[in-house]
């Protein structure tokens, strides 16, 4: 074994200390989720806390059964549709905006802050403002338009920042070369720009999808008569909490994790291809 200097040993110790801290941090962030996951397999007589009274799929079966926690299946479908639409709009808008921001234009400062404001304004304010406005105008809110509207306001800054970063590292000369060879704007975009920024667009879409799928505050007053999944979960919290809720939470979390995994895989493939 190589002899190590005191300096190196000190470094190793520091690094080990930080690694332990990282592990504790992960336990803090993931721990509650694991407790929830375990308790979703609580025995039939068990409650929402430990100890486990046997193991069973009872609460998962109740979740799948009719009218367990509201009408989950249709609210899940609504949440998914909404998330997909938000994903597409976020990806398109972020790309368009980031392309515009490659040049200096009048009002770019204002627009930049306006986009970022979507990140800063709490959901409860947007919800209240739009819901009261719609009330005055006399149009009842519904998840597929007013819910969609505020979701995109929330996801757009994330997608926009991703695309800004992508275009920051973009080599303009590739497009110039294509133009010099007589390509029109649309061809340049389709053949040069788009293939190079696709990984970024996927990342922007990931933000759109997951943030919308889990969004609760912004939809609170704006989903109208039909609930999205987070709203149903919230409604079930006002009743007596049962392990069914943990099963639902586990299922939803696993779904989110799968989506993130899927996006990372797609991103990696596209990123390799665009090199």
């Amino acid at each position, binding site marked *: 074994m190589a002899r190590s200097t005191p300096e190196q040993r000190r470094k190793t110790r520091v690094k080990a200390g930080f690694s332990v801290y*990282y592990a504790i*941090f*992960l336990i803090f*962030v*993931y721990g*509650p*989720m694991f*407790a*929830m996951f375990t*308790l979703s397999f609580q025995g039939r007589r068990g409650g929402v*806390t*430990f100890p486990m009274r046997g193991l069973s799929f009872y609460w998962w079966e109740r979740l799948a059964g009719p009218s367990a926690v509201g009408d989950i299946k249709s609210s899940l479908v609504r949440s998914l549709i909404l998330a997909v639409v938000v994903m597409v709009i976020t990806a398109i808008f972020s790309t*368009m*905006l980031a*392309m*515009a921001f*490659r*040049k200096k*234009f009048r009002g770019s400062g204002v*627009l930049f802050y*306006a*986009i970022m*404001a979507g*990140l*800063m*304004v*709490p*959901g*409860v*304010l*947007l919800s*209240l*403002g*739009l819901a*009261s*406005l719609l*009330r005055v105008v006399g149009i009842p809110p519904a998840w597929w338009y*007013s819910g969609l509207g505020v979701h*995109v*306001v929330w996801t*757009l800054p994330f997608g926009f920042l991703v695309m800004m970063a992508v275009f920051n590292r973009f080599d303009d000369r590739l*497009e110039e070369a294509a*133009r*010099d060879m007589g390509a029109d*704007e649309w061809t340049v975009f389709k053949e040069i720009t788009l293939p190079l920024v696709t990984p970024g667009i996927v990342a922007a879409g*990931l933000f759109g999808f997951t943030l919308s799928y889990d969004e*609760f505050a912004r939809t*609170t*007053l704006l989903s109208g008569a039909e609930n999205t999944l987070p709203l149903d*979960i*919230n409604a079930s*919290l*006002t009743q007596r*909490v049962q392990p069914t809720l*943990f099963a639902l939470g586990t299922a*939803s*979390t696993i779904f*989110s994790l799968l989506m*993130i995994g899927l996006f*990372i895989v797609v991103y990696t493939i596209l990123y390799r291809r665009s090199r």
Partner: protein
Amino acid sequence: MTTVEDYAQLARTAPRGLIGGPPDVRAEADRKYRREAGFPVPLLVAPATLWLIIFLFLPLISIFIFSFWKSTGHGMTPAFTLDNYRAFFVAEGFFDPKNPDFLTPSVFIRTLWTTFRFTVTVMAICLILAYPLAYFLSMQVEDFKWQLALFLLAMVPFWTSYLIRAVAWLPMLGRHGLINEFLLDIGAIEEPVSFFLYSEFSYTMALVQLYVVLAVGPIFFSLAKIDKTLLEAARDMGANPFQIFREIILPLSMPGIAIGMIFVFVMVMGEFATAVVVYGGKTSTTGTVILNYYAIANYPFAAVNAFMLMMAMMIGVVTILRVVDIRKEL
């Protein structure tokens, strides 16, 4: 009219090194090219701008306008009244020395203050927890792939439902919760304490867990951007690790800290659901007040609370920005 085509023509015909003749002509042609190449800007920004106007600005302006309207008990009518603001600021008996509530701020101001106090506590804890983590990832993990992987692992909860993460605290806290069981096992306490659930402790803890990743991200990015040769140079000149941290790393990571703190600040200020889940609704945040007044159809008063919340947040964000200049970061 000189167009991109002309410039391209020039570039093709002029001899190498002499493209476009004198430098000012060249620069002018270059600027023209930059302006005219690509899709027209108005076309690119119009859809998103329109969207933001409808779904971000109109709602915010509505809050301001409706805060002056008159509540009718089941709705509101256009008016210009300051009664809502009076009700927000002035509690009954505020000016009456004989009243026990003399000079006691109204319940709404106190709620806003509590919300703010909680937020600052959560921000402080988030910073203390997030900084070492971001430091570890950016400075101690050398391999880029590992750095990215460990960073993503810490960030993943951000993409999962925050309601469910709040719910997940229930089995941890309560009287028979994991924390109590653990403390009983190691003999730290004699009998389970109820202090963990539905208390300030549980509320703060849950909020920190929900939002700490928002602080990790920006701090990590600003730390990762630091040029490592700077640190080496400082070491070569005899600086000890503490000096390197105080003189180089900390100042250079201030923008990241500011952005992270702004994120946590605005999120926790607007918080309302977590209080219900882990605090049993025993406390109210300004967010819950807003929703309660909306529920009883007193829209103008909900709007007043919302507007005051907005003001408090603006003051907070501006204060943070005054302390740290993040413009070079953006």
